[in-house]
């Protein structure tokens, strides 16, 4: 196993793996991207598999943890190319169902995907999916940043896969990093969240949802993991964050 993938949870029955593959042809506008895989009993769910540019590498890396044909679901937190761009490739190489917001289903043909019967579309309030002995919760995260956006909470590992929430603009991930000094890390969070997230009201709505869950880790799609007390630190920071439409005068 190389530096591009790391097991972040393993209790012997369920395993969560973090990958970090980036489109290296665009290093000048670099934003590190994380992809995730949850495996139980040989069955996998792939989260935010990313763009076409990383498909080959991710395919090979994922196949070290689960038979590609045993990927039962692919979850797309939102419609961006660094999340959903390879949907057609995964549709060809697996028999998986694709779970995404109902807002984005019709747009997927622009990525070359036309098998709408393979989509499990999520309504705004989200859903729960039985996976192994537990449930996966699709938690609404709308306008944070995408209008149709979901985080995924795995009740077994107690990880929130938060999509762009918690994303940090950091250098290329030479090694896997967990946030160690939250105060120091805040500067990497602020610029992205201020511009990409919808508003403080929306941040508070999401934080309120997450606080009801038993969370040990927040795993964003860009940047580093938040663990233990940094989960609370991040949620408190996000609750107070002014962003998006809170700065409407700066934008218009």
């Amino acid at each position, binding site marked *: 196993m190389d530096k591009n993938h790391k097991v972040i949870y393993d209790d012997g029955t369920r395993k969560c793996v973090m990958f970090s593959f980036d489109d290296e042809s665009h290093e000048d506008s670099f934003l590190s991207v994380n992809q995730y895989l949850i495996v139980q009993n040989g069955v996998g769910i792939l989260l935010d598999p990313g763009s*076409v540019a990383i*498909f*080959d590498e991710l*395919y090979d890396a994922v196949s070290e943890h689960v038979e590609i044909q045993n990927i039962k679901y692919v979850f797309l937190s939102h419609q961006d190319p660094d999340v959903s761009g390879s949907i*057609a*490739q995964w*549709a*060809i*190489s697996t*028999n998986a169902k694709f779970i995404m917001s109902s807002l984005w289903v019709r747009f997927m*043909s622009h990525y*070359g995907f*036309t*098998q*709408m*019967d393979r989509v499990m579309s999520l309504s705004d309030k989200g859903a729960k999916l039985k996976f192994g002995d537990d449930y996966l919760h699709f938690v609404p995260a709308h306008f944070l940043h995408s209008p149709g956006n979901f985080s995924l909470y795995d009740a077994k590992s107690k990880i929130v896969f938060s999509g762009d929430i918690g994303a940090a603009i950091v250098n290329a991930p030479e090694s896997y990093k967990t946030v160690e000094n939250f105060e120091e890390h805040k500067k990497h969070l602020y610029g992205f969240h201020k511009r990409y997230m919808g508003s403080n009201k929306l941040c508070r709505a999401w934080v309120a949802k997450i606080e009801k869950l038993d969370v040990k880790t927040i795993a964003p799609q860009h940047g580093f993991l938040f663990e233990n007390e940094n989960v609370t630190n991040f949620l408190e920071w996000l609750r107070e964050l002014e962003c998006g439409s809170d700065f409407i005068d700066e934008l218009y």
Partner: protein
Amino acid sequence: MQNLQGKTRHFILKYQIVSEQTNYGILSFDDVTELNLLKLFDGRETLNDDKNQNSKAMLDLLEVVQRNSAKIGIHNYYKGLSITNDAIISDINEGFVTIKTPFLQQKAVLFEKKTILSSEAFPQDILCEEIGKVDFEKQIVTLKSLKFIKTSPTRRKTIRVTPGEKQTVSLFMGEIKFHGDIEIEDISLYSVRLRLNALPAGLQKDIPVILDMVLELDKKPLIIHTTAAMLRKSESRHSFSVVFIFQDFKQNDLIKYITSRQMALIREIKGL
């Protein structure tokens, strides 16, 4: 014969002599449908009855779906590209069903001249073999000749597409090259269907063959060299169609090829 509820039943006409009454008897109909004997007497009629009962059951189901404004799936294939959308039943009449579905699906229906309907409410998918009116303005399609089907392409586990125009394929059995006309009908990650003008001598299920295929990906040749085994063959008037399963082929290049081909087919159907 139909009973009072309009259901087809199998009756036996019985004649019973009335004792001590010359020239008198009793005629009666006994309903023996449950004995399932009709096919012994009239096989063709049994088939017709089944068909009628299926059609009636199908229309009843479609009416339930329509009453509930439930969505159904509509499936078409454009050169292998699966085009699937939701549809709503807007009208059911004797012999035809009218559905409302998006523009791209209407185009796919028009191209394929048939379509498949699916729903959790249906015991099997429904094949519509005849397409009536396609109204792009009202987004409606009229479907005729509907029947339940036991096997359906919607259950295909792999995507298979027709290749682009630039393709060559060679088939070897051992060291011997097949010299007949040969072309790729469609290709998936796991198999290829070839059209041949003749069957090579000795072609059998368990005997491996070598396939050399050259396709085009991003304006460069994509060479696929693999051993394969015949899965099945079928014969039409002027050619044979043979499906081969790949045996030792790394799929990454084919994933790229099939994705690229899908994009090309999407552009093609949108341009129709």
